[in-house]
């Protein structure tokens, strides 16, 4: 199944002049394995764009290309109007981020690691380092060796290292990995504040809910190719109604009533599964009450986007 939504004017061949990331026909192979195949999409300036896909979809390979760590076999890509491969040091001005788990020298402190990276950027300002550590909540652990850091703390340090460059474009690979719920909320708030400053954020995830919370646009990758690219609103328009599980005083009568209202319904064990929008579900609940059928429990089974994501990324979808 191909759902190629007209994103960023692509249907008309128009290229958004304010796109901070552009890819066209990008392919990358590792030996016999195709990691990316004819990938193309754009990330608009000032947007938070999610790169969504299951493990092995090619997200990290794509981010490596954008950060100039490897070159595409075919196609073209640009970040902030420049090709990152060939001369990444020059082309990556204004770009920062990390791929996979952020990596640092474990035998050095967080502060010393950032000092070194700041020096590589030509600044070496200890104030900037302190500020970045404070921004990600690591100020109190600044002098601790990275070897003792948890995965979540390394994620935070990775973000601090990226913020040191004061980037226009921030590229983050599964940044909430290893973070506790509070850390995830803080990170999402930080990303929102960066976007509010006009920065562009491209973040990858395999979690639809995370993308829904943080992003305005999304590109879905599966098996190395783009299955969808566009805004979340456009994606929602493609989605089926969400699924709900009802437990009623009489599930059989409730199922008959739902069917009479043209709502897809199915009995499963002790539950009645109904696929409906919130408005239609309200109508069903009121109708059940009108017929004297008590609703004892009502639970949303999956979100429409989750269901669509699974459908788009399932093996048979091409």
């Amino acid at each position, binding site marked *: 199944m*191909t759902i*190629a939504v007209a*994103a*960023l004017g*692509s249907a008309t*061949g128009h*290229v958004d002049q304010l796109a901070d990331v*552009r*890819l*066209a*026909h990008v392919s990358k192979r*590792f030996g016999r394995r195709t990691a990316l195949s*004819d990938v*193309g*999409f*754009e990330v608009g300036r000032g947007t938070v764009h999610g790169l969504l896909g299951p493990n092995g979809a090619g997200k*990290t*390979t794509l981010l*490596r290309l954008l*950060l*100039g*760590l*490897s*070159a595409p076999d075919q*196609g*073209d*890509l*640009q970040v902030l*109007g*420049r*090709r990152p491969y*060939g*001369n*990444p*040091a*020059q*082309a*990556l*001005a204004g*770009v*920062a*981020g*990390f*791929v*996979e*788990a*952020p*990596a*640092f*020298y*474990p*035998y050095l402190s967080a502060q010393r690691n950032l000092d*070194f*990276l700041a*020096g*590589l*950027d*030509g600044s070496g300002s200890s104030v900037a380092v302190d500020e970045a550590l404070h921004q990600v909540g690591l100020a109190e652990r600044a002098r601790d060796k990275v070897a003792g850091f948890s995965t979540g703390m390394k994620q935070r340090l990775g973000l601090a290292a990226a913020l040191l*460059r004061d980037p226009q474009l921030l590229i983050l690979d599964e940044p909430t990995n290893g973070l506790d719920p509070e850390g995830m909320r803080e990170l999402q708030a930080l990303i929102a504040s960066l976007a509010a400053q006009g920065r562009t954020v491209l973040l990858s995830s395999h979690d639809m809910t995370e993308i829904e919370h943080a992003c305005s646009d999304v590109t879905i990758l599966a098996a190395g*190719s783009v299955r969808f690219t566009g805004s979340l609103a456009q994606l929602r328009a493609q989605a089926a109604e969400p699924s709900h599980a009802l437990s009623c005083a009489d599930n059989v009568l409730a199922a008959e009533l739902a069917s009479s209202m043209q709502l897809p319904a199915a009995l499963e064990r002790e539950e009645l599964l109904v696929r409906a929008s919130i408005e239609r579900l309200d109508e069903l609940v009121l109708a059940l009450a009108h017929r004297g059928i008590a609703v004892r429990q009502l639970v949303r089974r999956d979100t429409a986007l989750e269901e669509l994501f699974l459908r788009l990324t399932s093996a048979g979808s091409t």
Partner: protein
Amino acid sequence: MTSLVDPPGPVPPPRPTAADSRLRSVGVRYVLVWELEKLLAQWRTRTAALLCLLGPAAFVIAVKLTGTVPADTLFGRWINDSGIATPLVVLGFAAAWGFPALIAVVAGDLFSAEDHYDTWKTILTRSQGRWSFFAGKVVAAFSYVIAIVVLLAASSIAAGLLLLGNRPLIGLSGNVIPIGSAIGRAALSWLSVLPSCLAFAAIAVLLSVLSRSSLTAIGSTVALGLTLQFAGLVDGINPVIRLLPGSGLLAWHGLFAQPAFTEPLWTGVAVAAAWVFGCLGLAWHSFSRRDIAGSSR
């Protein structure tokens, strides 16, 4: 899938500015200083330095305490007769067995350590090109090699002169070499092995870049050094031996003959230079084109 966007127009990379050039030259120096700082913080570097500093004195004390001399080594039988024999015995031993290991333990680790810690992706996405890292790390490796050779030379000359005296040295042709001249020739001998040591460092760097494994790079360099040492014992392959990276390690012998001859020294320098440029050229070729594809690939 159909293309979603038109191919971007060809946007050339931004033209280098004066600030870019300044950042690049600062980059090599910055990486060099950083690598040296890291080296000084590592136990292996400190151990190597301590070994070079105290090893010769320990050797002399052992000779004095046991009353035996290493008679099967060059100048070994005269070790008690002249203090300046000590640095030559130490040099002979280091050339045969010590240098490849001392060099490889650092030069074979500088590049592959970044693979071990997966830090290439961290440092190569900053404002420095790959050349800054390559040049900075190579210069750091060479600085380390020069430092340990100078340290070992100075400590062995000092240990010999202070503990065994400053009598004249008997040369390889039975000629008597006054102490002043012997010290100069000993210093020159140590200087003469530097190009070969740098060649071993270049080999270790190449193996470190290619294998991405410190263990492989260090082990292979040491194994190569041992193989070359044993190859020197095989008759009839002298023309080949002269083209190997360790050929200059024994070229100093001619300085203690009567008359002195220096042709092997210059041959050794030329051969070592070829190995240095060849290995570093290959290493840069590989490093500059490498996909930083992560540990999973």
